[in-house]
């Protein structure tokens, strides 16, 4: 579909990582998607400048756990770029304990919010971020909340504090589930 976008992505990625380091898939409408894997998070610092130079637009960043409830250690981050209609996703493996990654805000100003969001959700340490404070979540909430299994039933109970349930069950025996650790 967009030959020019593909070629410039291919060139920018190849000059840093070597030929064949970007793989392509496409959808039924002929839109192309490029996929790049980086095993060392420091490599981001070498791939971000050439992508910025060819006019790539950072669309968003997705952090994820190797296991969604944190039962297996390890995290990855997928950086999604647009090159005039072509999506290129650069996935980075993070080191463990603690997971850390360099900021790409020097080349992509709009990485600011994206990086702060994954930092608070997964407890990932940002290196050289100009403003690494929390974005959405209050300081009172634990770090890496998205790494934990919070059972759906707990969320659906509207669990907040035991005070709430003491009022609801005023004058009656409090059910055991209201005394769970998530309610304290």
């Amino acid at each position: 579909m967009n030959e020019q976008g593909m070629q410039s992505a291919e060139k920018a990625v190849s000059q840093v990582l070597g030929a064949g380091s970007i793989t392509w898939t496409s959808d039924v409408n002929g839109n192309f998607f490029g996929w790049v894997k980086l095993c060392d998070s420091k490599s981001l610092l070498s791939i971000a400048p050439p992508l910025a130079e060819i006019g790539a637009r950072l669309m968003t960043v997705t952090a994820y756990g190797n296991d969604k409830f944190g039962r297996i250690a390890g995290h990855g981050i997928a950086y999604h770029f647009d090159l005039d209609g072509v999506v290129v996703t650069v996935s980075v493996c993070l080191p463990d304990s603690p997971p850390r990654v360099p900021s790409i805000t020097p080349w992509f100003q709009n990485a600011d919010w994206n990086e702060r969001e994954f930092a608070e959700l997964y407890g990932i340490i940002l290196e050289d971020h100009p403003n690494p404070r929390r974005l959405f979540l209050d300081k009172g909430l634990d770090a890496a909340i998205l790494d934990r299994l919070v059972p759906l039933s707990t969320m659906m109970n509207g669990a907040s504090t035991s005070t709430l349930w003491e009022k609801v069950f005023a004058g009656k025996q409090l059910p055991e589930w209201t005394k769970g650790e998530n309610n304290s």
Partner: protein
Amino acid sequence: MTSTTYTLPVGPLHVALEEPMYFDIQVEGETVRSVELAAGHVHRGMEALAMQRNYFQNVTLTERVCSLCSNSHPCTYCMAVENLSGILVPQRAQYLRVIADEVKRIASHLFNVGIMAHLTGFDSLFMHAMEIREIMQDAKEGVYGNRMNLGQCIISGCRRDIDDSTGPFLLGQLELLKPQLDELYGVFERDPLIRTRTRGIGLLSFEAAKRHAVVGPVARASGVAYDVRRKAPYAVYPDLDFEVQTDTKGDVHSRALLRLREAVESVKIIKQCLRQMPEGPINIKAIPPIPPGEAVARSEAPRGELFYYLRSDGKDTPQRLKWRVPTYMNWEALQDMLANCQVADIALIVNSIDPCISCTER
């Protein structure tokens, strides 16, 4: 800040804000000198929920991210699932998806320009815009049974067909809407009050738009001619004739006019769809298992580019589902748009990005 400046807190609950956001604004006299944003007041943890629900349940969940673009979310999510599993959506369903998206776009844009009229103090125009919008609300109710969440998208296609009774009804609503939309455009374009209050304020240059990577009408009004429907076509947009609307003024007025022109284009698109739509199935009954892997999908929601990333480990719930909404990209550009503006214009400028906080925070 110097002693001549003082802090003007706006929000999180404020009469000029539809949803909660906190603006820490430094003002000097009546002039804004700097802006800091604090978000998170309606964070719902929807991405955590999405990882605990199966692929079908997530269609319902994503439809509830936001009310104004509630068709774009499940539709783009379904596109990501379909991209990953290689599901081919029937042609008729592709048209039905476009119709639902464009109906929502008209209603969303009319809502935003209506609120703009309200913020200028022109309340009769606000009510007029909302009354015109009612035509589309009635269309939604008549065709889909709901006024906001249409429930139209499912994995592999659509839930409801448009038949011999709902098709002509929808067309009739569009015929009713079109002249009123044209008239409304004329009022927004020429009315002296609207022009005085909205022209030349909230300026965002082409360079700043690129730097902040803004999307949607905010980008297009600053000369960034990016529309996903043309740049990375999906559904049946390649077969449809419409023009991507752009402007170069980059102010509040040009953003409102651009939205109204887009609504006119949407009318054109829906009419083409109703004319061209082939007969055939509207979904596939047997959905294959979702394989391990990753996929992305994009669409042009009313506020701009909507992006979904899906990561699967082969189970019936996603390993990770992430979505980035258009407003998320546009918030920080407010620091440029609000720079040196008057305090009285803050609400108008904030509204001109068509902010959606329930989308932003999920």
